[in-house]
């Protein structure tokens, strides 16, 4: 694979095209990273400095962006004055809880779906995945009514259950692909040696562990980044980071410094996790339709 030679052209047109491509990539890279960069920088700036901007068309004036004395006061206001450690804990528990629920039940279901054939299997499969395609707002209207009567609104269990609407189908869909790659002969051999069926199932889990690990992370990512469910189902007792960040926008006063700091707190862990599971990300985000 690595030794495959890529033939390159050297005509005048191709050269021009290559230069154009390089410029395009460069500009795109800047446009992709700039908002994130500005968020990071602004979270360490005093508001007066964050609001400093050159006159229209004054391109040299852009340097004011880098002129500031770093301050941690926005982070202090989040965690010391505000209640952000609690919101962070809520986010962590809701995301982690839904990941655990989804992966435990999801892997059991994915395993069975991978091992047997029955009538209507493809219909069942389509139903499972269709629950993930539905618009979140549309799902939420009845879910809110049901959860309210069960007194699950504003609680972590309610939020975890709500997150299962998208994480559980996702786990089943993806993990089935992993179990499909494990031949049944391995379990058969275990059972010949006297293992029960459940022990045989457990014995192949290490084989799919890397996949499961990556999908726990992806489930956490989806739940952590969710806003609508958290805003409606979690409102009150189970406020998560995106919701708390949004609440820093008040009609009279938008606390930009705190918002940027909260943005960093919300984004940074997910970026690091994303780097760890980079390899599985395409499979995950496309629900396994494209395998790298």
């Amino acid at each position, binding site marked *: 694979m690595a030794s495959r030679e890529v033939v390159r052209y050297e005509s005048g047109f191709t050269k021009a095209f290559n230069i154009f491509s390089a410029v395009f990539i460069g500009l795109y890279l800047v446009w992709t990273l700039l*908002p994130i960069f500005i968020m990071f920088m602004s979270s360490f700036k005093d508001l007066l400095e964050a609001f400093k901007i050159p006159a229209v068309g004054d391109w040299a004036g852009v340097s004011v962006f880098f002129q500031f004395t770093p301050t941690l006061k926005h982070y202090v206001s989040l965690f010391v004055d505000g209640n952000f450690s609690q919101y962070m804990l809520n986010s962590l528990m809701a995301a982690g809880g839904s990941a655990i629920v989804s992966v435990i039940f999801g892997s059991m279901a994915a395993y069975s779906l991978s091992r047997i054939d029955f009538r209507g299997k493809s219909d069942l499969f389509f139903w499972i995945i269709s629950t993930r395609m539905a*618009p979140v*707002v549309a799902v939420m209207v*009845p879910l809110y009514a049901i959860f309210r009567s069960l007194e699950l609104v504003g609680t972590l269990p309610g939020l975890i259950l709500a997150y299962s609407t998208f994480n559980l189908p996702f786990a089943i869909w993806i993990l089935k692909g992993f179990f499909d790659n494990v031949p049944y002969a391995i379990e058969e051999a275990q059972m010949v040696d006297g293992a029960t069926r459940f022990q045989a*199932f457990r014995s192949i889990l290490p084989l799919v562990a890397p996949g499961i690990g990556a999908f726990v992370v992806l489930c956490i990512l989806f739940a952590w980044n969710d806003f609508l469910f958290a805003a409606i189902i979690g409102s009150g007792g189970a406020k998560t980071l995106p919701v708390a960040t949004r609440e820093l926008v008040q009609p009279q006063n938008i606390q930009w410094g705190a918002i940027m700091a909260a943005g960093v707190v919300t984004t940074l862990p997910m970026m690091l996790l994303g780097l760890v599971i980079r390899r599985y990300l395409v499979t995950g985000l496309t629900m396994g339709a494209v395998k*790298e």
Partner: protein
Amino acid sequence: MVEMTAVQMATRRAEGVPVPTDKADKLFRVRAVSTEVEARPLEATATAPTKLNPTASKRYYFYLMAPAIIILAFISLYPFFWLIIMSLQDADIGTSEWNDFANYTRLFTDSRYLDGWVLLMKYSAMCLSLQLGIGIFLAVIINNSRFEKFLVTAFLMPMMMAPAVAGLVWLFLYNGTFGWYHWLFQSLGFLGGASILASTSTAMLGIVIVDVWQWTPLITLITLAGLKRVPQDQLEANMVDGASPFRNFISVTLPNLYPVLLIAFLLRFMDNFRFIDSALVLTGGGPANSTKILPIYLFEVSFKFFKLGRGAAIALTLLVVTIILGMILVRVFDRPQVKKG
């Protein structure tokens, strides 16, 4: 396309190696079998071990499946029935009484509802065309480049951000007095004094830009994965025959990318209906309803005015249309490809 001589085919058949038929050929675009594979002893190509349990006692597996199915039924089937019932009621917080089909008949005269559909289609069309155009172009030019790995990692970053948080950051960037992007737009002569989100003519573009910023990389990633599977030997063979890179792209790369692009398209199409986080944070439907795409209107009706019955009726239409559109799209795009000469 691999050309096989009649002699080759006959020897393959004699050896028991499956010979690609025309139909399979069209579907899978068989690659040339390398000499290494052909030299392998025949036993190695014997059937792979089965994945299915040959002596399945199905009951055990159904027990394993049950918890997940029960949870899913509780959070998707049961609410779906509730959605239908609620849509026939004048449901509010705590109260509900039957009003037959009043919720539905009202929809036909509800201009915001109808506008919501138009705006949603406009929004989807803008997002999709920009994302597909830029995303595919990016994938093609960074494929096999020296910096591919680094670039892909960098492109991933916006996707890791919560859409609501991304919306807030862009709100800051768009701000009419201190936003850097506002300054940039003005410096380039695109905008007057008002922020991009403050004017009814540009607000839609404002939310589209954020969606494009966050999700174009996904198209690039998917396309890249597809590009890795384009058979290189076909490209090389065409090149030897004197085809230009552009010609090669049109006649070899693009048909091979087709299934992958279909997935990318469908995924983003569905997501434009599903996620409204960033749009909700950025404009909340304003100014003057110019960005009130249907899901935002639905959110407002249900959770701002708590007209849950009316919301349910709107939600049901949105749900049904999403499913129908998804199915039509799959049909249209999934037609067998016309083989190009």
